[in-house]
Each structure stands twice: as C-alpha cells, then as structure tokens.
C-alpha cells in the first residue's frame, strides 16, 4: 500500500463487496435468514389463536397483524447487523477503510434487507392467505412491505450502530427504533386496510416511497456517525 490511490477500489466495487460479503456470510449461516421468517410466521399465528377463528374478524385484522409481525421480525434481526463485525474487529477495518463510511453503512443496510427484508416480503403472501386476503390486497401489501422493510433496515441500522457493543442491546434497540418506526407501521398497515376496503391506496404508497427515499439519503450518514461514536 505504498501508493494507496492506485490500490483503492472504486466506490461501486467497494459497495458491492460489502454487500456480497454479508450475503455470503448469511448463506453460510442460514439461521440468520430463517429465524426472522419463522418468528414472522409464529407471531402471525398467535393472533388468530388469541382472537378466535372467526374469518370476518381475521380478514379485518389481517393487515395490522401482518405488519406488526413484519416489524417485530425485522427488529429481531437488527441486533446482529453490526454485532459480528464488532466482535471480530472487522468493524474497525470498515471504519478505517478508504471507502466513505456512509457508503459502507448503506451497503450494510442493503445487505440486511436482502437477508431479512426481501425473504419476508416473499413469504408474506402465505401468511396473508391464511387471513383471507384477496389477491389484489396481497399485491398492495407486498408493495408496502417492500418500501417498509427497506426503510426499516435503514432506520434500524442507526439504532444497531448506536447500541453495538452494549449489553442488553436488543431490548434497548427496540426501545429506540419502535417509536421512530411508527409512521412506517401506520402507513403500511392502513394502506393495506384501505386496499382491503377497495379504497384508494396511492396516498399511502406514495408516503412509504417518500419515506424510503428519505431514509435512503439520510440514514447512512446517521449510521456512519453512530458507528464512529460506538467504536471509539
């Protein structure tokens, strides 16, 4: 590394290598991918068991249940976002590397979404069918869940960066992120409810898309600042 400018990887290849590394790691430990999905399925099962099997009530509460379960499942996996990197010291490498840290943070959040958010969106129709959701509503639900889980991964990466290396991290992380995630839950669940009632859904979808853009642009910078502070 006598001439670091020559050896420095380009912005996009550095970004992709972080994403590839995390996805490969998850591939080798399938529990990281599967556990949130099982959790998602089980929480959605809790509600019919608790509320009762009446199909009308389930169709009514379905959107809310699916969204709450998705939110909790996404939170559950956030704790590990920077944990292993922190423990084996590769977080130091990421911070010290010539790549801009916000870019790395964005890559980590994107990898997290690929590992947990995307499978959750793909599995959600199975849960939705058990709640008597019609096909049209399911497509709206998948769109809202896509925007919502991307935002959650980005928003959650801030919380994960703030709590990395702390004891009792998981409970604290939920306490930090849940109030901030309320707009996602509100617009996500209500939009699916509106779709189920054959109402206009564009307002909610636009909001979620806008929120997703906001977190895409701002969250990586907050995450980068938080990582620097936590790793001092």
């Amino acid at each position, binding site marked *: 590394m006598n001439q670091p400018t020559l050896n420095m990887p380009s912005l996009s290849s550095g970004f992709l290598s972080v994403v590839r590394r995390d996805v490969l790691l998850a591939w080798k430990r399938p529990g990281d991918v599967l556990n949130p999905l099982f959790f998602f399925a089980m929480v959605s099962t809790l509600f019919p068991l608790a509320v009762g099997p009446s199909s009308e009530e389930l169709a009514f509460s379905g959107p809310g249940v699916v969204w709450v379960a998705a939110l909790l499942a996404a939170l559950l996996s956030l704790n590990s976002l920077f944990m292993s990197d922190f423990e084996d010291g590769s977080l130091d490498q990421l911070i010290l590397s010539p790549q801009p840290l916000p870019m790395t943070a964005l890559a980590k959040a994107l990898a997290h979404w690929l590992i947990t958010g995307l499978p959750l969106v793909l599995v959600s129709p199975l849960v939705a069918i058990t709640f008597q959701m019609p096909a049209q509503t399911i497509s709206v639900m998948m769109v809202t869940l896509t925007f919502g889980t991307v935002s959650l991964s980005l928003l959650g990466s*801030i919380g994960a960066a*703030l*709590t990395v290396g*702390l*004891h*009792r991290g998981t409970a*604290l992380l939920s*306490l*930090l992120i*849940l*109030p*901030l995630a*309320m*707009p996602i839950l*509100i*617009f996500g669940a*209500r939009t699916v409810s*509106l779709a189920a009632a054959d109402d206009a859904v564009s*307002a909610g979808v636009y*909001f979620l898309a806008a*929120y997703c853009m906001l977190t895409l642009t*701002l969250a990586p910078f*907050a995450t980068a*600042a*938080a990582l620097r*502070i*936590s790793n*001092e």
Partner: protein
Amino acid sequence: MWTFFHKLASPPHFYDLAAKFIPWFGVIGAACVAYGAIAGLFYAPADYQQGDAFRIIYVHVPSAYLSMMAYMIMAVSAAIGLIWRIKLSHAVAAAAAPLGAWFTFLALMTGSIWGRPMWGTWWEWGDPRLTSELLMLFLYFGYMALRAAIDDTTKADKASAVLALVGAVNIPIIHFSVEWWSSLHQGATLVREGGPAIETGMLYPLLAMIFGFTFIFGALLLGRVRTEVLFRERRANWVRKLVLPEGDHA
C-alpha cells in the same frame, strides 16, 4: 459577542450564573402560574360547550407545549454539542430529557382526564394529539435508556445526540402520519379544545400559565444542568475549590 458565549459555556462561570438566575425564574414562574391558576379556575367564564371542564386546558396546554419545547431544546443543544463540541450543551440536552418526559406525562394525564367528561372515555385513539404525545413519551424513554446504557459520559453524549437528531427529523413525520391515521377514523366527532373563538377572559390566564410554566421549566432546567456540570467536572480544579473551604487546603 463570541467571548460572551465562550465565557457562558465555561463550566464554573455557568455554575455561578445559573445559581443567580434560578430563584428569579422560580419566583416569576410561580407568580404567573398562581395568577393564571386563580384567574383560570375562578374568574374565567365557563366555556359554552364544555362548561367548567375546559379549565383543564390551563394545565394541559402549557405542559403539551413544554413537552415539544423540551425536545427542541434537547435536539438543538445536542446538535450544538456535536458540531462545536461544547460540553455544556451536552449537559443541557441530558438535563432537558427527564423534564421533557415529565411534562409529556403531565400532558397525557391531563388530556386523558379532560377526555373523560368530553368523550366519555379516558383514552381516545381517534385523537391525534394524545397519540402523538404518547409517541413523544416513548421517544424520551428511548433517549434516556440509551444514555443510561452507556457508562462513558462523552460517548453517551455523542450517541444520544445522534438519536435526538434522528428523532427531531422524525417528529414532524410522526405527527403527520398520526394525523392522517386518525383522519381515516370516521364516527367519533371530537370537541375541539377552546372552541372557535377564545374570549379574552379565558385567554389571559392561559397566556399567564404558558409564560409561568416556561419560567418554571427554565428554573428546573438550569438546576439540573448545574447538577450535570458538577458531576461532569468533578475532577476539575474549580470544583475542588468550590467544595473545600479556604483553610482546608493541606
């Protein structure tokens, strides 16, 4: 101008100056609140729609306003602390959080007590302001929990400052989404606080209460910042001089 700020931000100077301001803030605040409470409770005319129950707004509105104000103070001083690395402003942020949480709690409780005779229920999810206040309380809890979880004060200052700023960006969005959410909720028509036009006999006590609460909040905040400063500077020389009487120096 800048020397004034630097002097103000120097811990020993602030520690002395705040001690001089606190009693004045307390007295002004208590006087305004006393006038506002007596005038509001006994002299302001009863609302034509809500009767005497409207008098609850004399404590509800100031606390709700302060719950927002405290978060603003917290976020702004957190930003100042992060950008210009002024330690005093981190102390202000740390002191503002528990006070903000108390006033948020107060706004929630009085809002709920007001809602009981007005809506016939202690809690109305359809009301966006109460729901927003509840989320506000959770934001304060998160901030305080993060601070409590980090042992190193400097690290806790910076980490919680990032959280406060992320929260500050999110608060307008949370308010907006809660408004949208409750606007879809048809049925329950809510009585608006204060009605369309507020009479001056009702207004002056309210202004006095808001003014008085602000000064009381100021006194409480300064007191807590002094405590924070004392704790953070416990190894500094001026604290040693402060707590040891002159003859005690060995």
